[in-house]
Structures are given as C-alpha cells and as structure tokens.
C-alpha cells in the first residue's frame, strides 16, 4: 500500500512571506475558499516575533472532496484525514512567495522542487538589511534568484504581484490569491476563490481588482474549456513584467545609454542645450561608446557652473580619450573618466544642493510621489544641517578663512543649526532663501573648497593618466576609485581618507601584473564598512600601507 504516492493525499501549500505582509490573510483566504468548495482544510503558521518583519512560513493542507472519505469506511482509525503541521521538503504542491529572496529561501529549504511544485512568486524585492547597509551596491543577483525559481519548479508563475496590488490600491495577498486562482493548481472556480474576499468585508473592491490583476498575470489561458493545469498545453513557465526588480531597472538604464550613443554618433548636439552645442560637436572625435556619458557630463558641469567649466571638463576627459586602449570597443577608460570626472567636478556643495532642491522638475516629482493632486496644497520641508565648514567653504577664500576663525560666527552657526534646520521650501521665505543660495554660483570658483577640489582632481587625473599609459586597466581602476568619495560631512571625510589610501596603494601597485584587479579589490574593501577596518586590514596584509 502506498496511498500517498498514489495520490490519496492532501494538496500541500506553503506560503513564504515577511511578517506583516499579509501571508496569514492569504492562508486564511485559501482555507476559506477550499472549505467553501468542500475541502477539508488545515492551516498553521509560526507566529511570534518572527512576524515582526522577519521571514515567516504559513502552511496549508487541503484534502479534496474527490479523494473521498476513509477507504475502509467506518473501519478506519480516523474519520477525518490527518493533516501535517509541517511542510515536507520535496512534497509541497504549491509554493507561494511574496518576494524574490523569500522564493530563494523556499528553494533552499527544499519546499519548491522541480518534480512537483507550482511555484508562484512575486518578483519584487524587499531588500535585506545587509543589502541595504552596504556603502556601495550590496544587492544580490536577482537573475540568480529567478533562475533558481525556474530550476526548482515544475511550473513557475513569476510577476510583480506587489506592483499589481499597488496599482489596484490593495495588498499583495489579494493579487497572489488571484495568481493561485489563475494558475489552476487548485480545482476551484474563480468565484470560489473570490468568495472569501467578498466575505472579508473590508476593501472588497480594491482586493477584487488586485485579485483580477494577479489572475491575469498568472498567464492563465481561458480555463473555462476545462483544460487541466498539468496537461501538456499549459506553459511550464510564465514570467511577466517585473518593474520592481533592480536588475530590470539597471538594464533599462543600459538600454537608454545605448540609444543615446546611437544618437550621439550622428547628432551629438541634440543631446545638449544651445550653449553646449559647439562643445558637443567635439565629441565626434572621441570613442563612440563614451559619447553619451561625455554629453551627460557636459550638461552636468554646465548647469553646475558655466560654459567654461564644461569646457574644462571636456578637456580633462579628452586626455583620457587620447590614451584609450579600446577606442572602437567599449572604451571603458573614457566612459569611466567621463563619469567620474563629472561627478567629482560637480561635488555636492551648499549652492548645488540649493539648486537641486529648487528645480521645478523636483517639485513636480515630490508632488507625484506624495500622490497630491495638481491643485492640492503641498508643503515640502527639508532637513538641513549646514556645518560651519560647509558654509565657509562656499564663501570666497579670504572671507571664508576669516569667518572660519571667527568665534562669534562659529557661535552663530552653532546656535542656528545645532538642532538642524527644517526649511519649508514651499513657503515664500524658504523658497527665496534656497533660490538665492542657488544663484550664488558665481561665488563658487573663488571659494576655499573649489580650489581644494580642483587641485585634488588634477592630481588624481595625472596619476590615472600616468598609470593608463602603461596599464590601461589600472588607469581605469584609479579613475573608478572616485566612487568612494560620497556622502556629506563625516561620510565624505571618511571617503576622502579611503581615497587617499587607495591612491597611495595604486602608486605602489603600478607595474604589478595584477595591479588593476588588486586595486579593484581594495576599492570594494573601502566600501565594505563604515570605519575603514576592512580596507586597513587588506592594505596591511598586502603591505601597501604608506
């Protein structure tokens, strides 16, 4: 006798979600729908602190009416089917996961398996704390998670069910229930699935809309014809739109850049404003793959300061273009130089932040994000904390230096900003203040910081070019080290320290066969923690300390 292997067994369903995401509601709905259809249903979960945003598993067993009462009639040990409270690895028919990494967890724990499981996963990401905390890009590879989902399922239904729910102003439990209904993995009608939502009483319409969205996204063909889900005609895989995925966003960005490069090949001037057209034409002589990036840089430096500053930018980039080892290919040296020179030249000072905060496009974006109607009153408050250094750095050199030394001025700034400044940008006073500051642009070239940054930029460029003449890869790595310069205040100061250490290390690495690779590793170490411990230990172990 092997009743289980012969299919006299409950349908098993596991839901993996994050606490607070509504996995419990989904499980309750599934149970209610199945009970409505005559199934025997059992539902368990592990509650407690795990539900405070942690990974949580809900487990449901459904014994279909068709699989009958006990085989021996009243002679059986139990009158009702005995349900398990644990999902058994390798024996789960349906796995539903509310997020892509939780899908990976379902695969890792052996709940989703290729011989059995219909895997329904939302492709959106809720980043783990480790991914979020990294100083650089700590996100895991979404593609690997999705590939794992395919490897570990008999049938995969993957779509951004979070976005579907959001567009219906509802919650993911509703769109996932729709996907389950659409998958046909349970022999229930759509009406039977919808019944518990209707009975739920609250937000019925949005929930049904999200349900419908999930149902459609499951790639279900019209199932009224009676085709069984596992019959040959059903697609084994349906992966629909996934705008939430980081990889998708990145690849959209890359596609955008390719298109711009195509335009730049014929009409670079169309990608910039009127004053930059002449400079834009100069990019025709530069590596094709780098032109979009260079044009971005021109616009950025022009808006940041003025035309001569943009020209200075182009001159700087041109020096890299001249030594580009891969002119007709990806031209990575020039691309990265175009990127990082612009980013450094447009360092975030008070004037620039004021400009960013007052741009019309920015106010529009805030309005959209806040879901405010056109005529609705919207107030935007900034959390500013100008430090004395930031103020004096922005002023003309002599004045800045004097004020920096002035005790009275220090006390004044301290008093005004000690608790931070909350500025209502949408008020007449606040907007005027920021707009005025943004128009202090002409003061910038005479400021303390401007001189300091330009000198540092020059030094960095010289070092990168020197490296690039003998080792193109190392030159590019030196350029890319600029990425550790980010943040404000203490974070920026820490980045500057890391940058100095990297430059020293780069000089020592020149001539080594794997210099570029080693510098890249050190750059990653610099972004591994906030106190520089990892970088220091790697520098020590490589004997690269100055």
């Amino acid at each position, binding site marked *: 006798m092997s009743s289980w292997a012969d299919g006299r067994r409950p349908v098993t369903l596991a839901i993996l979600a994050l606490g607070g995401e509504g996995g419990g509601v989904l499980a309750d709905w599934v149970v209610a729908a199945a009970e409505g259809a005559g199934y025997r249903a059992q539902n368990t979960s592990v509650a407690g602190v795990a539900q405070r945003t942690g990974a949580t598993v809900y487990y449901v067993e459904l014994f279909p009416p068709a699989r009958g009462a006990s085989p021996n009639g009243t002679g059986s040990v139990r009158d009702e089917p005995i349900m398990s409270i644990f999902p058994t690895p390798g024996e789960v028919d349906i796995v539903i996961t509310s997020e892509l990494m939780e899908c990976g967890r379902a695969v890792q724990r052996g709940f989703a398996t290729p011989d059995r499981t219909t895997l329904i996963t939302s492709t959106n990401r809720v980043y783990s704390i480790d991914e979020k905390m990294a100083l650089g890009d700590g996100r895991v590879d979404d593609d690997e998670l999705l590939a794992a989902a395919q490897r*570990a399922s008999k049938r995969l239904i993957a779509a951004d069910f979070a976005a579907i729910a959001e567009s219906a102003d509802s919650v993911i439990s509703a769109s996932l229930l729709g996907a389950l209904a659409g998958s046909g993995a349970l022999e229930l009608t759509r009406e039977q699935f919808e019944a518990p939502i209707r009975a739920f009483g609250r937000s019925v319409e949005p929930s049904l809309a999200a349900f419908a969205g999930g149902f459609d996204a499951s790639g279900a063909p019209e199932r009224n014809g009676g085709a069984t889900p596992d019959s040959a005609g059903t697609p084994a895989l349906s992966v629909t739109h996934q705008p939430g995925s980081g990889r998708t966003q990145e690849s959209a960005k890359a596609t955008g850049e390719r298109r711009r490069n195509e335009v730049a090949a014929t009409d670079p001037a169309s990608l910039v404003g009127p004053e930059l057209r002449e400079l834009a034409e100069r990019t025709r002589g530069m590596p094709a793959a780098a032109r979009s990036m260079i044009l971005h840089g021109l616009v950025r430096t022009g808006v940041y300061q003025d035309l001569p500053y943009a020209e200075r930018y182009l001159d700087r980039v041109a020096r890299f273009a001249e030594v580009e080892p891969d002119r007709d290919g990806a031209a990575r040296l020039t691309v990265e130089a175009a990127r990082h020179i612009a980013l450094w030249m447009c360092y975030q000072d008070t004037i620039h932040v004021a400009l960013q905060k007052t741009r019309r496009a920015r106010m529009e974006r805030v309005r959209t994000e806040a879901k405010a109607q056109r005529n609705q009153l919207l107030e935007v408050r900034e959390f500013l904390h100008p430090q004395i250094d930031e103020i004096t750095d922005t002023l003309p050199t002599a004045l800045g230096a004097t004020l920096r030394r002035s005790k009275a001025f220090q006390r004044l700034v301290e008093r005004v900003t000690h608790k931070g400044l909350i500025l209502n940008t949408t008020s007449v006073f606040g907007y005027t203040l920021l707009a005025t500051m943004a128009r202090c642009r002409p003061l910038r070239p005479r400021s303390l910081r401007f001189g300091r940054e330009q000198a540092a930029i020059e030094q960095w460029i010289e070092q990168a070019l020197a490296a690039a003449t003998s080792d193109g890869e190392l030159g590019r790595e030196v350029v890319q080290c600029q990425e550790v310069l980010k943040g404000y205040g203490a974070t920026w100061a820490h980045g500057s320290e890391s940058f100095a250490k990297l430059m020293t290390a780069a000089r020592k690495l020149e001539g080594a066969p794997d210099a570029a690779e080693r510098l890249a590793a050190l750059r990653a170490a610099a972004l591994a923690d906030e106190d520089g411990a990892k970088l220091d230990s790697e520098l020590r172990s490589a004997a690269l300390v100055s």
Partner: protein
Amino acid sequence: MAERSFAVEVEQLRRGSGETLHVEGILAVTKALLQSGVAYVGGYQGAPISHLMDVLGDAQPILEELGVYFENSASEATAAAMLAASVHYPLRGAVTFKSTVGLNVASDALANLSSGGVLGGALIILGEDYGEGSSIMQERAHAFAMKSQMWLLDPRPNVSAIVDAVETGFELSEASNTPVMLDLRLRSCHLHGSFVAKDNRRPAVSVAQALEHPKRDVGRIVLPPASFVHEQEKINERWPAAVRFIKERGLNETINDDAADVGIITQGGLYNTLNRSLELLGCSDAFGNTTVPLYVMNVTYPVVEDEIIDFCRGKRAVLLVEEGQPDYIEQNLNTILRRNGVETALHGKDLLPVAGEYTSAAVTKGVAEFLRLVLPDAIQHEPALLRDREDPASPFATRVAAEVVQPRPPGLCTGCPERPIFSGMKLAERETGEHHVSADIGCHLFAINAPFELGATTMGYGLGSAGGAALSGPGAGRRTVAFMGDGGFWHNGLTSGVGNAVFNKSDQLLVVVDNAYAAATGGQDLLSSKAETPTRSTQHPIEKAARGVGVEWSKTIDDTFDVGRVRDTFIDALTTEDKGPKVLVMQSECQLNRQRRVKPEMRQALKEGKRVTRERFGVDPETCTGDHACIRISGCPSLTITSNPDPMRTHPIATVLDSCVGCGVCGANAHAAVLCPSFYRSDVVHNPTAGDKVRARVRGWWMKRASARLEGHAARFEAA
C-alpha cells in the same frame, strides 16, 4: 487594545451543542473552557498563546454572562498562584502562559500548588515555544511536570483532540487532586480546524458561592509536617489515581497493535507528523490506517507503565518518537522495560535527532532508518527527502546560490518609536565611547541585530537591569546601560531591577522603553498604558513608580522621535556625576497600535470634510549619493534602496516606500547624525481651508517667478 481583535470570532463561543465550528486552535481552547464549566481564568500573554489571552479579553462579556472571572495576570507567577482558589474550593480554574519561560517564572507557585494538591480542577495551558519561530531558549516543559509532579497532556494536533484534552484535563485534575498541564505546540496554537461544539456550562460552584463559606485546611498548606505528607500522597494516592483515570478513559491510544511485531511509541503532539512520515514511506494512509503498530501518548506524564509493557511485550523492537532533550521519556521507558524484564529493543534518539525540532523531514528519516533495521519490507515508497543531498533529485540539492539568500531576522517595524532610541544611543556612543549593554525581552531586543548591534546579554523578562548588576557597582567605571520594556518593568523589573539597583547603590543607566503596550506580545494593555479601559486600571506612570522605590535621577522623554534630544539625554545620563541608578523612561506609542487607532479616525475626518494633513518622507535622488549612512543608523523597513536613476551614478540610492507612516526618524536622524540634505517631508493637505487655497496660489505664483532665472540658466545647457 490588542494588536488583533477577536471581537467577531468570539461570537462563535456562544454556539451550542452539535454545531460545527471552523476555528483557530486558541478559540477552540476557549470554547472548551466554557464547555467545562470553568469558574476563573488568568494568564500572561506571550507567543504562541498571546492570542488566547486576546480571545479571552475580547470574550469578557460572554465570560461575565456565564459567571467566569478573568484577569490579565501581572506575571506567570501571578497566574499560577491564582490557581490557589482550587485548593480548598471545588472551582475549576485555568491559566495560560508560554513555556518554558512562563513555567520558569511560575514554578515557585506551581511547586507549592502541586505539593498541597487541588480539589477543583486546575489546568495550566502551555504554549510550548519550541522549534522554528520560537523566540526563547530551547527547553522542555516536561521537566517541570516531573519535578513538581503535575500531569502533562500532549494531545494530537487536531482541534477536536485539543478540545477533548481541555475537558478531560479538568476531570483528570479532580480525579487525582493534581494540577494538569496542557501542552500546545507552537503550530497547534495557530492551527485552523473544526470540531463539534457542546453547550457552554456555568461553573457548578461560582467564586461568589465559594466565598460564602470560607474554608481552610492546614493539611493542604506547604509547611512541615504537611509538606512531608504531601510527598507521600503524591506517590501513594495521586499518581495511582491518575493512572487509573488515564487507563479507564483510554486517553492514550494503541493503534493496529497486531499489524506487526515491531511498533512505534509517540508523543501525541507528534502523531500527525509521524503519520505523515508513515504515509511517505507507504506504511499508512491519510486516515491513519498504519501497517506499523502505534502507541500514542496523549498523556506524556505520568507514563502508564502497564500500557507500555502491554505494547512492548511480544514486539522485537520499538521506536520512541520524543521531541527535545533530555530524553526523559526514553529514560523512563528503559527503566520500565528493564524492571519488568521486557526484552524488546528500545530505539529513540539513537535513530532520531537528539536535539532540535521533530520536523516532517527529521521524523521521516528516523522512522525510515528504524524500519530498515527491523522491518524493511514495510517500506513501500522512498520519499525524495531520503535521497542523498548530492543527488540532483533530492529536495535539498543545491538549486540556489547560498549567497543570494540572506538571513532575514525580525526587526523593528516601520515607524517604531524604539528605533530613534537606538539611533540616539548610537550617536551618543560616538561621543562617550561604547558601553556594555544589558538587554531584556521585548521588541527592543531586536537592537542586537544590524544595524544597531547593541546589547550583550538577555537574562529574562524584566531582568535587563539585573543582568547588568555585577557590572554596575560604584567602582565599575564606565557606566553600564540596561534596557527594559514597559512590559518587563511591570512584570518584575520594578523590584528585581530598579529596587535592586537603588538598594545596592548601583551606578547603572536603566532605559525603560515605554510604548504604552506590551508590544512584542501583541499590544496588550498594561499598568502604564495610555488607554482608558472599562475593566482595567491604567495610566500609572513608570517614572513615578521608579521614584517610589527610591530612584533620584530619572527623566521621562515623551517623544523618542526627537533623536537629538534622545542623544543629548543619553550623553547626560552617561556622564553625570550623580550617584545611584539613572532611569530614563523613553515614551512613544507603538506604531502598529497607533496606526490601528489613527487610521480609522483619519478616514472619518476625511469623509467629514475636515482638514487632514498626510505626511510622508522622501529622498531626493539627485542629492542622495548612495552611501546609505541613513540606513545604517535606522534599519526602517520603509527606508530602502533603489536603482540610481542618474545615468552617471551607479550605486543604488536610498528611497522611502509608500509604507512610510511619516514618523520622522529619517529627518531627525539626518539632523542628529549630520547626514545629508536628501531627506524631505511632504505634507499633503486634504479638504483645504480658504486660507490654504490662497496660500497655494500665492506660493505657486512666487515659486514660478523665483525659479525663472534658475531654470533659464539650466535651459542653456540641458537638451529641451
């Protein structure tokens, strides 16, 4: 107000005889209590039986109708001591709490209770917090049953079986004058299933009736010589009476005893798991028709010697499925078999895991190994989980790269008022240096994880202060910081921590996190809750209590979201020259509860056309450079990362999700930690006043005008 309301569900408690109820395990337990004629109920919340307390709270009108007294006990010790009412009076009483931590706290009262014995049925419903999802040390309630001689019921995880266990539990208690513990495993508490109801019963004797004729019997009080008599009674009278009752009522089950000359003995709570394993191996079906004889111990203590001997005698080998360690039952069975000269080979933890949860996979592997050893032909099917990990068909074969599946520990919710406390402390430590932190039980314990990484030990509920006692003496130097929640404070921290620190002239800084609820267990009210409730006395300030036991230096911060003030207060408390314990009460309402309270109010106001402002936070993508410093001092679920929209920048930027509740920590952190100017708060005004409309128009006009020059400058460089 508790996190989850059962106001609708409790109506099912009124259902009468013959009706089928589809309910969660905890509701079934409550119904079973009412069907048993219980006279009084108490308990202390904690997963997995928090909801049982919530159900009872919501069922108060029904309890009152039936004349049942219910109280939210101050601690598990209080709850257990409450059962003293059943010592002299024929009152049925039940208390509930989580195990084993609750049993630890309650064991003084329980030891006294079980020494003198009971007249009325006394039931202790335990939520056994063991295995996946558990938040406590992994121990067994079984030890407490053995040490105090209380009976331990471990019913099959089936709603009907659990209901039966409650009812027979009272009878067993009365038949043997012994308190009975009912063990509900973690998943059983949240089990959804159905059972056939009976009518509710008023208590045969009510509390009021009992008190008409006060009784006492010095023979039931734990003091020599009675205490020595109690020990003899336990062994010579109560134990045999219990065994008699269990046998007569057939509480344990022998299934298909003649099917083979080997067998399996299991704890009742593991029966479903075991049957699933047997199904997977082709030795049973969904209705329990097993080809391997089973003995199901729905009562795991006491072990009924005769039944064990009857089951084992004539069998070559028996496997005992007993979860957790030590292997108390296995030792017990070995003693029984050896004393009685039964030759049956007893297997158990030689084939099954010695420690850890008995999941479906663990039991299946152990049972398969047992059957291969003694009855190989019984195995009709090899489930995939038995395959080698390296086998590509194994469910455990590597199908996903390990590094892409990261741990996701529980953490503080969006808008949690405790987050800014830890942000503030992190910032204070930048100035004062690091301190030893003695943590406690509660949501605040999540601070031990990233990103805060604060807290070195946790010694038990309300023991945060005591846990730092040895490190807080007058000569300790660098000040120790102890944390405690409002729940822990009232549970025992006021005496074991604050009073202790005052008396011993401790130099410790104690932070009491006052979020107005027992938040970690589901938002139950407590002494210092802000809420006014008709049945409980609330609004007793924590600072007043601390000062009442002699604390001189105490401050209450009524808005933890003011990170700058939190930081400055920490620095003050950590550096002050004042002697004696320093107590900081950090107050702000639990956001989960706040949202539940505020959201309907807001919806109502919107509907009524009142002016309502919706706040949320945002990050400017141009200004954010993607260093994530803001995340490293927050960890808020709504503050996350997204791909950088800037074509030149590569690192993801910070972003605020729609789930943001506008608590303000982002902004306050940006200020206090001097982070960056990227954060903004947007306030959208609904149902604007005439003044609002005028303001909107004037501002719109002005911003257009004032931005003209800036936009003009940009337009010279930007493509149209």
